[in-house]
Every structure is written in C-alpha cells, then in structure tokens.
C-alpha cells in the first residue's frame, strides 16, 4: 500500500507541473484585466466570463472560422485522395509500392524550406495570398503523405479474403470500396482525420507567411498580442484558451487514435 501511495503522490506532482501552464491559462482567462496583471499574481478571485465575451464579440470569430475552414477542408481532401491511394498500396499493390510509399512519407519530412519560396511566388502571382482555400491546399499537401501512410496501415489489417470474395461476387470496384472498405476502416479514417485536424489547426508557419487579414487563422490572432496591444493578459489567455479548445477536446476524446496517428500507425 505504501509504495502505491508514494508513487501516486510523485506521479500527481509531475502531472501537476506539466498541466499547470494549461490550468494557469484557464485561471488567467477567468480573471479581470487588473487581476491578471497584478504583482504579486492574484491566486484567489471571483471568476468572470467577461474576457471570453470580449474576445467572442470582438474580432476573434473570423480567425476561428478561417481555421475551421482550412482544417476541415484539408482533412476532407486528405481522406478523399488518400483512401484510394492507400487502397492501391495495401490491397491491390501496384509495382514498386514500397518506393511509392517511401516517396510519400519523405515529402512529409521535407523541410518547408524546400518549396516555400516558389509556392509563395506562385501564390503571389495567382493572387492567392491571403486566400483561405489556398492555405487549405497547402495543409492538404502537408497531411496527405501521413494520411496515405496511416490509412494504409489500417487497410492492411482487413483480412485479404474479404476483398477476394467481393471480387468473385463480381462486385464493382466502387462497390467494393463503399461496401467493404469504408465501414471496416472507419476507425482508421477517424484517426487520420484527427491527426490532420490537429496539424492543420495548430499550423503557424504557412499561416503567418501566406495570409494577412482576410484568411488569417486562429494562431495569427494570438500573434497580435505579442506587440502593440499592451497588457491584455486576461484577454490573451481567453483567446489562447478558445484557440486551443477544439484540438484539446478532440485529442482528449480520441486518445487511442492519437497515439496510433502520431506514430504513423506503428504503435497500435
């Protein structure tokens, strides 16, 4: 009994230290501005939702909506393009499948340095800078290799006989996909979507360089707090809380899919 208690205490201490910045963010968000910028820091206070209201009724919603458009659209495209590709690599493999797979995944880890400048120039010339759909296309590129790889790892787990049976039945390719594949890899699609949503929702580098006002996403709203707005700590914390909320909730709900997705399917 004693070692269990001791270990629990140690564990909770460590978890508290790691979770504390998140907790502090929430606490700051529930303060008034003078409380948030007080010295010494205010620990006990009457919580208020005032700053959340300020943020939500102010200029934050368009940023949030842009983030949602870019993340959802790119996730949809990743699944739509990635599922057939994963099928071609896992179930009815083309020649040199392994090389193709390697090619896909190597593009995920190409530094953005590789294509940044030409993409920027192209977007500029096509007047696609500060366009949320162009940003969604970039996020699709970032996530598609991971999506193909992950979906393939799920497809490999489906018994091969199922596809053979469908083919003998004379099922059309399209039917095969819809009737057999989609229901069986629903968990795979969920895991892939989760990872794509996380990466594109939190993405900052392309957002800061390819958008300015019209298409700016949630992380860019936070940038405006680094400079120019003075001491708005409570508002800052409220905005940071809201911006982080979708990914935090999704990751908490789908912890099992999270680990599989993060390791590209290697850890089940």
């Amino acid at each position, binding site marked *: 009994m004693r070692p*269990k208690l001791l*270990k629990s205490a140690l*564990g*909770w201490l460590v*978890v508290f230290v*790691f*979770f504390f*910045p*998140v907790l502090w*963010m929430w606490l*700051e968000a529930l303060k008034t501005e003078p409380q948030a910028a*007080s010295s010494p*820091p205010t620990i006990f206070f009457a919580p208020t939702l005032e700053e959340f209201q300020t943020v939500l009724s102010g200029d934050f919603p368009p940023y949030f909506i842009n983030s949602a458009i870019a993340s959802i659209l790119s996730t949809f495209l990743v699944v739509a*393009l990635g599922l*057939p*590709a994963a099928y*071609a*690599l*896992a179930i009815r*493999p*083309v020649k040199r*499948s*392994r090389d193709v797979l*390697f090619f896909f995944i*190597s*593009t995920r*880890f*190409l530094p*953005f*340095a*590789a*294509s*940044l*400048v*030409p993409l920027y*120039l192209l977007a500029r010339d096509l007047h696609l800078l500060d366009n949320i759909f162009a940003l969604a*296309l*970039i996020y699709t*590129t970032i996530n598609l290799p991971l999506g*193909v790889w992950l979906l393939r790892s799920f497809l490999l787990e489906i018994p*091969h006989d199922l596809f053979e049976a469908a083919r003998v039945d004379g099922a059309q*390719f399209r039917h095969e996909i819809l009737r057999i594949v989609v229901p069986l890899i629903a968990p795979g699609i969920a895991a892939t979507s989760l990872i794509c949503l996380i990466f594109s929702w939190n993405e*900052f*580098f392309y957002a*800061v*360089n390819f958008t300015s006002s019209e298409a700016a996403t949630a*992380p860019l709203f*936070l*940038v405006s707090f*680094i400079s120019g707005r003075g001491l708005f700590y409570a508002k800052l*914390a409220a905005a*940071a809380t809201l911006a*982080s909320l979708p990914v*935090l909730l999704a990751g*908490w709900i789908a912890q099992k899919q999270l*680990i599989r997705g*993060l*390791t590209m399917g*290697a*850890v089940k």
Partner: protein
Amino acid sequence: MRATAASALGREAWARRLPLLPAFVYVFLVTQIPFVLTIYYSFFSWNLLKPGSFRFAGLENYGSIFTSESIRIAVWNTVLLTISVIGISVVLGLGVAMILNSEVFGKGLMRTLMIAPFLIMPTAGALIWKDTLLNPLFGLLPYLLSPFGLGRVDWVNQYPMVTVVTVEVWRWTPFMMLIILAGLQSQNPEVLEAARVDGANAIQSFRRITLPLVRPFIELGALLGSLFVVQTFDSIFMLTFGGPGEDTTNIPFLLYLVAFQGFSIGEASAIGVVAVIITTIVATLALRTLFSIFQIEARR
C-alpha cells in the same frame, strides 16, 4: 492474341494505378516542382523589394552560406535545440510513462491531463509561458522564485535558449510519454514478476528486461520527435523572435528572416536547398531504422 493479352495486362495495371494517381500527382506537383524551382532560384540573386534585381549569380548564394556567420549560428542552434529537447523529453517521458504503467491512483486522469501540453496550440502555449508565467513583472514563476533570489530574472531575454528548450520540452515530453507508455503496456507483467521472484532488484529488472523492451519505442519517439523539433518555428517566433541577437535563430527561423523580412529570394532558396540535403540524410536514416524496428510490411 499476344497483343490483346498484353493490353489486358496493361489495362489491369492501369486499373491498379488509377486510385493512386490523384494523390501521387498532387503531392508530386506541390512538392517536387517547387523544389526544382527552389534549386533554380538558388543560382540567382533576386530581391523582391528591388524590381529588376533578378540576375544570374552562379554559386554566389552558396558561397555566402558557407562563409556566413549567421548560418553557422543557426545550424548550431538547430542542433543544440533538437538534441537537448529530444534528450530531456525522452528521459522525462520515460519516467512519467513508468509511473503511469505502475499501480497508481487516477491513472486515466493523469494521462489525460499529461497530454494537454502537446495538444495546446504551440503559439498559445508559448504566449502563456512568455506573458503570464515568465514575465519578470507580473509572471508567476519570478514571483514563486523570488525567495531564492531569482525574483527579477527576465528569462526570455537573459536565458533565451533555456526558455525555448523548456517550452519545447514541456510540449514534447507528453509525446514521448505516450509512445513509451504504449511500449511498456506491451510488456508481459509475468516476466517482471518472475524476475522479482528470481531475486532481481528493481534496477536490474529495469535494465535487463524493461529497457530492452521499450528501446524500439524510445527510438521511434526520438526519431519522429526530432523530425518535428528540427522544424521548430512557432515557439521561437512567439518567445524570442530569434533573439536576442541571433541567440535562438535556428534554420527555419533564419529562412523566415531571409525570405520574408529580407525578401532575398535567391539566398533563401540556397538555404532551403542546404536544409533539404541535411534533412534528407537524417530522415532517410530515420525512416530506414523505423522500417526495420517495426518491420512494417511493405510487401503485400
């Protein structure tokens, strides 16, 4: 006869390739062609802010890369940041994973709270650290540390690299913990029990049984983690903006400065080419190891 057989075979091959094509063509167009253009631009001198400045420069850009102090500092900072973040977060992640794998109260809740730093938007996390935790006037940490004489330390400006590493370790420890925990959970508890019965102490069974088992998981976490940490940009942008001076400027941030603050397209492209070469070498090694560790079947 042979012709029809061949064309049937060809049709079959195309039927197989067809589902692959959209994704393949898309990824190819958006990553490979720009990369070729990056190589092309790297041989030119071109500043976007100076119309008409586009001229062939040969190897000038590369020459300045290899002689420039900024690049050397950026490479060093990238290496330092990656190695310290991965090293520290693997050790901490292993520790937390071992606690979570033993008999403790509230395991599920602990794990849930523990992964929060990884899920929080990196820009948001960095901002919270900088403005509400580390701020020398109103931050919580200087206040808590003031009895120890560290009350008025301006962490972001006095210890910029320590600050960036701390925030990144905070973010990546949960990632390592998740992967290592999965490894620990694949361990058969009876083996440990048997070792204990045979008189092995805790340290012996950790070194001889647990560590060899989780080693591939640690390697996987370290490899994937370093591919991400090498690209660290968000927290540097929010915390230090690469400064003071160039103290926390890594390669991605230098690229940002050259391309989007200096608008030197040619030089930025040359940095890009060099970064790609370095990353390709590292990533190829990493992926090959990954393939062999987890024996990912690519045959079927």
